[in-house]
């Protein structure tokens, strides 16, 4: 599977880009030990106008490059954690619904639909506004609006895997139903969940940036969305303050999308070949 993935040009580009972002995020404290909030020079310096400030300074004279690097940490952190939380909610719910069926399924799906009918972004805004913007509330808000598609996907996969004969074999072996769900069914639903997760991280990063841009970000966390929001009022005179964080977001989201597609392609031939062989069944 790795071979298929690595032969996909787009996916490898995505991996390289994402690694670059991760490296920058991890080394931010080393590269910029004073943090992103320190006023280092005159404000509104253009990129490369002064040595050591390749991306210029912002409205308060802070180093834009430092802000980008620290912003990477926040974006990646929020993206990852919120996706994990969404998976923690969606996977068990979908698995239980798909495996047990009947009223468990009904209840879980009605609950999921309730969340799906509310527009994502609007709900995120409301949640963050109610719980006072902070990294924690943003992460949870994003997780809350992101989990329904996961539940649906897992439910569909579980329903399909549940019908396969090795599940029957496991029942005959005397395994309890929860054990079957955990050890036999779920491991076989992992591939589409991974693909979806990678795309969810990208969406989470975009959501966080949008919230920060609107002023609902954590005022103590330097994030790319915050940078763009703060630069909104001076965009005509200091284009670079909006440009660089914007590029950073584009690159990161693009990288994640490429990786997600690559994973999808790498997993799928596996799936389609299996289905073809299973075609020789009795009428």
């Amino acid at each position: 599977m790795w071979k298929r993935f690595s032969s996909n040009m787009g996916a490898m580009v995505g991996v390289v880009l994402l690694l670059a972002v991760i490296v920058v995020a991890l080394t931010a404290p080393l590269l910029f030990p004073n943090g992103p909030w320190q006023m280092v020079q005159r404000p509104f310096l253009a990129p490369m106008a002064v040595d050591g400030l390749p991306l210029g300074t912002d409205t308060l004279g802070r180093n834009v490059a430092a802000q980008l690097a620290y912003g990477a940490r926040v974006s990646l952190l929020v993206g990852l954690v919120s996706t994990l939380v969404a998976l923690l909610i969606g996977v068990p719910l979908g698995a239980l619904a798909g495996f047990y069926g009947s009223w468990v399924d009904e209840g879980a799906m009605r609950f999921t639909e309730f969340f799906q009918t509310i527009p994502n972004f609007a709900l995120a805004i409301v949640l963050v506004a109610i719980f006072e913007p902070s990294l924690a509330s943003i992460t949870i808000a994003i997780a809350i609006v992101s989990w329904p598609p996961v539940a649906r996907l897992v439910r569909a996969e579980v329903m399909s895997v549940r019908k396969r004969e090795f599940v029957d074999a496991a029942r005959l072996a005397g395994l309890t139903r929860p054990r079957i769900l955990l050890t036999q069914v779920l491991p076989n639903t992992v591939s589409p969940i991974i693909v979806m997760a990678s795309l969810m991280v990208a969406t989470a990063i975009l959501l966080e940036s949008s919230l920060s841009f609107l002023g609902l970000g954590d005022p103590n966390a330097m994030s790319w969305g915050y940078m763009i929001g703060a630069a909104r009022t001076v965009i005509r005179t200091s284009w670079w303050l909006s440009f660089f964080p914007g590029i950073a977001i584009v690159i990161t989201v693009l990288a994640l999308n490429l990786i997600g597609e690559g994973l999808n392609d790498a997993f799928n031939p596996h799936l389609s070949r299996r289905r073809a062989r299973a075609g020789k069944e009795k009428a």
Partner: protein
Amino acid sequence: MTYLKATTFLIAAALAAPVAAQQAGGRLDIVVQPEPPGLMLGLVQNGPTQLVAGDIYESLLRYDTDLVPQPSLAESWTISDDGLVYTFTLREGVTWHDGTPFTAADVVFSADVFLRETHARLRSSLAYVDSITAPDDLTVVFTLKEPFGPFINAFETGTMPIVPKHIYDGTDYANNPANATPIGTGPFKFEAWEKGSYIHLVKNEDYYIDGLPYLDEVFYRVIPDAAARAVAFETGEVDVLPGGSVENWDVPRLTQMDNVCSTGNGWEFFAPHAWMWLNNREGPTADAKFRQAVMYAMDREFVKDVVWNGYGKVATGPISSKTNFYSDDVTIYDHNPDKAKELLAEMGYDGTPVRLLPLPYGETWQRWAEAVRQNLSEVGINVEIESTDVAGWNEKTSQWDYDMAFTYLYQYGDPALGVSRNYTADRIQKGSPWNNVEGYDNPALDAKWAAAATMVTPEERAAAYLDIQKEIIDDVPVAWLLELEFPTIYRCDIKDLVTTGIGVNDGPRNAWIEK
């Protein structure tokens, strides 16, 4: 006997009127930022409310740019020699916007009943008043308990707006439905309020001064985004940017445009003074050493230069340099991070995080909060900025739910009017963001404030206030930041926009457009 001849003032007023031929007609678009929470000036005295409602309501007097009192609803007045009795003779033929005649009873109701309940700042002045009576429909007499020099400065539109007795007497003021369509005596009547978009005022055809106002209507435009406001001015959609409407870094560019004039006048009455409330009751800020450390840690010159483009002046203490009886012969808190660290070590600061509440009035204030946070973190104070909007800020400060909170207040020309109210124990009252919010309780100093207010000669008062300033500056009940300067930007063909000490607030009365 000090006798101020009203006639002298009328002539002076007439002489002060510009000679050029004023032209009637036209419409003015003025930016208001942020959107006022309400327009009933008796209940709400936020900056934006004063800006808009200053055209709708009036008080007994007006003040020119030297803070000299001028007639308004009162056409003449006398002060007794002992300084205890103020007698005002009201104009005849004044009507409320709904047609009801204006009488002295409205004045008595406003000052004695309505505002006493709703207007914290006026209450400070009313404390000196023994009685307010209306011997007849056109006369109002204020009798003081003791002489109070600054009292004559209390008759400004925002300080003592005269409100209609026939609408508010006996009602629940806050929930009176008339609050949505404010009724005043001013040159402009309320027409419409499209929330989030504009407030529309139209000329009061029955205004008691013939010929005024010249303008037909005024639109106060609500444009939440600072860049959009600058663009609106550049494209000609709005004509006036009152001080504080655009981000400071747009001001140089805008003032250099063709046909654009700017002036720093119009703020003399207010003398905006910016500081941070420091919660004297709980948290690390309750310790005076911590508060002093905060003062030394901040680089206020940097903020003045970078965030305010050099406009303004670093504040040394509670009294602005533009206000009477200011002195800088006090402890000066320069930018001294080492001293700050020493003080923190002495007090034993343990790293408890301290919340910082910025003013939700735009990017300027957000950047200021970030700069302060950075300064403080450099001396080891752990600061977290809270996210808030106007309503949230009002709530947190008035309910004392903060550690450090930005604010700026007006001084109203005299320490007894606009300064002492933030430092005396009798002004500690939950529910208002404008009084002694920090909870500074110093009975000895309270006595000095009280005494200084009632001394008779200016020299006595100056010495008394110097004494107060020395002591209070060492206590640092709040962290004084800057004396703010808000240039008003407008098109040059708008004339006589800023002729009073409150500038654009009541400017439209005399303004006219040269065609």
